[in-house]
């Protein structure tokens, strides 16, 4: 009985001390140190060290990559760094070259602009090129490459080339070749972007990717709305000879019934000096992509 009481008391003391420790200010790191550590970065070494458990080790590194990306993205640290993301993805895909989702998601994570991601489309391309060396017949990697060039680098010629090459592979969807042609002809317009993201939404088997596609489609809706409102402002100027001072003038002129809002319900801003329409600074749809809507300036 006395032993049990002693054990319970010591356990309570341990838990209490841990709670006290958590309330204390954490020890700071020296300036420039992120606290992120990856002791082994060599894929060749890890592949050998893993013996016959390389697939399981790939899963461990994949979990680590997701935790690193998610944890860094959610932090409020103004100097946050995604310094381990590419090394972790490189290790994951070296240990398991058939780990398709690591290539696909990994390339999206890497390309996301800072602070949502490291903003490194060049590393996305490197990862997808690695995927193609491991699995040259997978059309999806070529499509993903085209996507990176299209969306993050605005290199529509290269994007169209990758869409075309993806479309030539067996099993590729039949919308890829027409997409290549449209991309080459019209570049980065909203309609092409909408086609891409709609296909991502329809074919995504992960919630994260569907959420991402929904967000991008709402951004494209915002671009369409902005373009339409700028045409309204232009029509107001043509009729009255001057730009409206605010949305109230536009409503009084009968062009709108209420102050416009973006798809995320944030009020759209009108610049009375230039007639340009923009998102509110605190809109969750910021920053909008560098894609032009039809009729936009």
């Amino acid at each position, binding site marked *: 009985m006395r032993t049990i009481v002693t054990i319970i008391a010591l356990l309570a003391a341990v838990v209490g001390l841990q709670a006290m420790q958590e309330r204390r200010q954490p020890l700071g790191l020296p300036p420039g140190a992120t606290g992120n550590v990856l002791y082994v970065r060599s894929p060749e070494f890890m592949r*050998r060290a893993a*013996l*016959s*458990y*390389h*697939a*399981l080790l*790939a*899963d461990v590194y*994949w*979990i680590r990559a*997701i*935790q690193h990306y998610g944890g860094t993205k959610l932090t409020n640290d103004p100097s946050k760094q995604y310094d381990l993301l590419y090394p972790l993805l490189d290790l994951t895909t070296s240990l*398991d070259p*058939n*780990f398709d*989702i690591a290539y696909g*998601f990994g390339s999206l994570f890497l390309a996301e602009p800072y602070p949502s991601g490291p903003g490194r489309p060049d590393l996305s391309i490197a990862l997808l090129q690695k995927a193609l060396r491991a699995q040259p017949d997978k059309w999806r990697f070529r499509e993903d490459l085209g996507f990176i060039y299209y969306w993050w680098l605005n290199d529509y010629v290269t994007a169209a080339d990758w869409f075309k090459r993806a479309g030539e592979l067996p099993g590729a969807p039949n919308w890829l070749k027409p997409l290549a042609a449209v991309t080459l002809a019209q570049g980065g317009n909203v309609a092409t972007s909408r086609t891409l993201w709609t296909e991502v939404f329809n074919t995504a*088997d*992960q*919630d*994260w990717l569907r959420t991402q596609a929904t967000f991008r489609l709402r951004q494209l809706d915002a671009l369409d709305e902005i373009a339409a409102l700028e045409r309204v402002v232009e029509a107001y100027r043509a009729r009255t000879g001057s730009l409206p001072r605010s949305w109230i003038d536009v409503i009084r002129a009968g062009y709108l019934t209420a102050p416009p809002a973006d798809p995320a319900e944030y009020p759209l801003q009108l610049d009375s000096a230039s007639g340009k329409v923009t998102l509110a600074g605190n809109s969750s749809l910021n920053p909008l992509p560098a894609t032009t809507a039809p009729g936009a300036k």
Partner: protein
Amino acid sequence: MRVIRHIAVNVFKESVRDKVLYNLVVFAVLLISLSYLIGQLTAGQDMKIIKDLGLASISIFGLLIAIFIGIGLVWKEVERRSIYALLSKPMRRSELVLGKYCGLVLTLLINIAVMTIAFYALLAYINWVIDPAVRLSWPAPAVDPAMLKAIVLIVIELMLVTAIALFFSTFSSPFLSAILTIGIWVIGHFGADLRNFGGVVGSPVAAAVARGLYYVLPNFSAFDVKAQVVHGQAVPLGYVGLTSLYGLTYLALVLVGAVAIFSRRDFK
């Protein structure tokens, strides 16, 4: 054969009484069950990690059983001096060694069967509760019979490791037997490096020695098809057959060596 069977059943009964064995199997089944929770961390790759962790658990825990029971199989009899009583019975030394080996393999098979059943039960449960749309995204079905190919090769691999552990236990202490067995198992995964050694070093003699070692040492990496079955890639039955034949031939070689050493050993 009757003597071997008697000894094998005896070894099996002794192993079943060993608490360490129960702990290992229970831990393996727990780990397989926990993989369901770990899978939630993988952004939609839960089926992959459950299969990877399940197959790896069967392999690792089987390896622990093979090594840590195998290294003591003969040594325990020598240490307890019960070897004299055994050898005074009307049986050959080869029957004792082979009986010990068969008993441990029987123990191993039963434990692997338990872990395999737990593994497939978990996969069947997940398959039952998951959204049908998610099922379509899997490269292979949850309750995939192809994984049995990986498990069969794991069994053959472990039978070979058991034979190697038994071989060393016929003449050395458990600690040394464990080190040597694990060492051979690790080196057996570097076959490709041994084969390609000539391309890295300038010395033709070193390259020849490495190439010789590549052929002589057991090639354990050949038994690993876990990644292929998880990704739904085909593993031809011919490959499984040839690799199994290689494993069984090699273990026969090791057992002959163990019997030869044990037969000549002087216990005075």
